[in-house]
């Protein structure tokens, strides 16, 4: 009933092509945006901003990047964390070595460096596919982390290879409180998500999807696989790079190359699998699931069982429950949480008259 779209006529191409063609979606999405932009910074405390919301947003952005590559262009990658590392270390070096470098420009340049590296490691995708390509991107994961550790120039000759980021100042305003860092992260993520949404609806995105579904057929209808695949690698790595720079600047403040290890790459891959492969919303839902569920379990399990369980057992139980829930969700909906939302929405449109 609430979701009925009767009476909403589309009178122009523009109205037909907008991101949210249904009015309820537009209103709902505006409310969500207003909630996160206006209400959250006003009421959330430091714990929620710094330890929950900022990492979820950053990982959403990284998952979005991987989703463009894997979900839309069909190229499996295990190098997302390494591209994040490139973004973080590149932004750090631009800020360090170029006097008066504005932060937002360093962020973009960091992303562009990651994009360049991503294209280089995407080249094998022109020859190999599927799991073989995953192994090739695995090489990126190991090579990049090795290079960042090996050459001290990247970390400004810090003895331990750890970089600690400069203060974030934009137009004279210092982003040093959790709320301001949160708003900065949210703005960047929202902007890039909007861009991604439009990109996948444009000819670029259609070319990616054509290559994903069948690259021979795509080539026959005039899509250049080289162009499509490499642009997917570039855009995906750009997103991961920006996420990595935000990870360093607005979240942790100090990062080491080992922080961007294979585990993190797998985590980002799990985010898109749980959230929904080939869906923008899925990247956000998946990131929230993977980041928040372990924290939730760590809070709830010791409280539920109090002193009954030893701490080791309760720590292991968290992992068991976490793994179990992942399997449960994948069995219930193999296409991810985003698909659950979609099904729910379709049901709502008919409710309460399913026929």
């Amino acid at each position, binding site marked *: 009933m609430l979701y009925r779209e009767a009476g909403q006529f589309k009178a122009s191409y523009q109205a037909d092509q907008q991101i949210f063609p249904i009015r309820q979606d537009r209103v709902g999405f505006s409310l969500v945006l207003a909630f996160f932009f206006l209400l959250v910074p006003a009421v959330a*405390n430091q*714990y929620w901003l710094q330890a929950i919301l900022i990492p979820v947003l950053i990982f959403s952005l990284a998952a979005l990047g991987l989703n463009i590559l894997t979900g839309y262009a069909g190229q499996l990658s295990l190098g997302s964390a390494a591209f994040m590392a490139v973004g973080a270390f590149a932004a750090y070096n631009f800020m360090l070595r170029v006097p008066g470098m504005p932060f937002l420009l360093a962020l973009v340049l960091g992303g562009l460096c990651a994009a360049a590296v991503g294209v280089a490691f995407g080249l094998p995708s022109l020859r190999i596919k599927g799991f073989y390509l995953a192994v090739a991107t695995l090489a990126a994961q190991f090579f990049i982390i090795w290079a960042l550790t090996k050459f001290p120039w990247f970390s400004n000759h810090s003895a331990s290879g750890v970089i600690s980021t400069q203060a974030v100042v934009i137009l004279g305003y210092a982003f040093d409180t959790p709320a301001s860092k949160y708003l900065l992260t949210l703005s960047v993520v929202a902007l890039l998500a909007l861009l991604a949404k439009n990109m996948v609806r444009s000819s670029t995105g259609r070319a990616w999807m054509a290559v994903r579904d069948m690259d021979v057929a795509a080539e026959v209808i005039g899509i250049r696989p080289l162009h499509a695949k490499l642009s997917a690698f570039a855009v995906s790595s750009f997103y991961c790079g920006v996420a990595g720079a935000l990870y360093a600047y607005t979240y942790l403040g100090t990062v080491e190359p080992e922080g961007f290890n294979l585990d993190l790459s797998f985590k980002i891959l799990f985010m898109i699998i749980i959230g929904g492969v080939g869906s923008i919303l899925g990247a956000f839902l998946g990131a929230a699931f993977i980041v928040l569920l*372990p924290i939730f379990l760590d809070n709830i399990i010791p*409280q539920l069982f109090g002193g009954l369980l030893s701490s*080791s057992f309760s720590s292991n139980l968290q992992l068991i429950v976490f793994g179990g829930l992942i399997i449960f969700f994948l069995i219930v909906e193999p296409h991810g949480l985003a698909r659950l939302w979609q099904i729910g929405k379709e049901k709502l449109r008919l409710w309460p008259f399913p026929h």
Partner: protein
Amino acid sequence: MEKTHRARRGAPLAALAAGLLIALPALAQEQFIGLPSYRVGPYAAGGSGIYGGWIDYMTLINERDGGINGVKLTWEECETEYNNARGVECYERLKGKGPTGNTTFQPLSTGITYSVLEKVAQDKIPMVTIGYGRTDAADGRVFPWVFPMISTYWSQASGMVKFIGGKVGGLEQLKGKKIVYLYHDSAFGKEGIPLMEQSAQKYGFTLKQIPVAHPGNEQQAQWLQIRQEKPDYVILWGWGVMNPTALRAAARSGYPRDRIVGGWWSGSEEDTIPAGDAAKGYISANLSGVGTGFPVIQEVQKHVYARNKGNMEDKNRVGSVYYNRGIVHGILTVEAIRTAQQKFGAGKPMTGEQVRWGFEHLNLDADHLARLGATGLLPELKVSCADHEGAGKVKFQQWDGSKWLPLTDWIEADRAQVRGLIEASAGAYAKEKGVTPRDCSKEP
């Protein structure tokens, strides 16, 4: 703020929790200590041993003494999985708990240490990093809130050089010798390099650095290279599975194990037992004593384990390397709180700022250690405003095939050399970050 959020999260649980909790402890004076522990994952052996020992020591203080001057210690664990992001979440979660907030943050992970390095200063929570973390934080003028106590990596490296020097008949005999530095190729593994390079120049030995890629379960190539190099000693700066692998590979290539000197993260039972016979004779550094012979450990057995309140699931681990290191964490934390209470009021919970003062004025001399029953468990320690390391000493121990045996007493690092490197590095950090070092003559 913190209250509202906890209430929000806790609301659905409140009914359940009320049913489970029979009686809430009376609201006595309490000192809260947040424990960012890790009991799962590849490093669980270290995490469960150290946090287990630490918790046992705090239980001992509560059970035997009724707390510190009547202030009971309370704690809560938060699972970090040795992961930086989870560690930051734990830090934020724990920092507001208890009547005075979190007293001290000790994450047992260099990555997490770096991630919260600047936050602890803002939130006024002292961070103690025993045997890991940022080495140059020993310069308390630049890092007032960080205490890399007992020994830093550079003190360990210097202690190793001294120990090897002693083996070959004096430091001057090191001239012309060859030492291989076999290290975990990571920030942690590279920590020792600056000091080793400087020592190689100073004493005239040849230093050969051989990295092992993480995780280090394949070391054929490295040990082939070591066989070709024929070094007089091998320093093993490893972590996790890399250690037993190195010992097994050394046995296969016929390198004598008593010429391998490991660091303190390469010298626990968990490193040697998996290597089996290959580990026999292997030497490692340690910053705490081993065994159950210390009076304080026997007190723990008597007051904690005999009453079934111990934290270790495997009671045989009491007295092991990691467990005893946990006891040392407990002793230093408790004594810092006690020192703070002497200044700011006995019998009151201390704030993080006051406990920081306590850490900075910690003075554990021989008498004090004897009173604690911890003579030989940790070295004499005197922390000051400028020197947050306090001791700079290491012990060496040897594996006899079934247990670690103490090999030497405390060996003091070349503190002038270590201090020089620390001040140079901390000075560079201060310059990069625009920090003005404290003037220690003006500190209270």
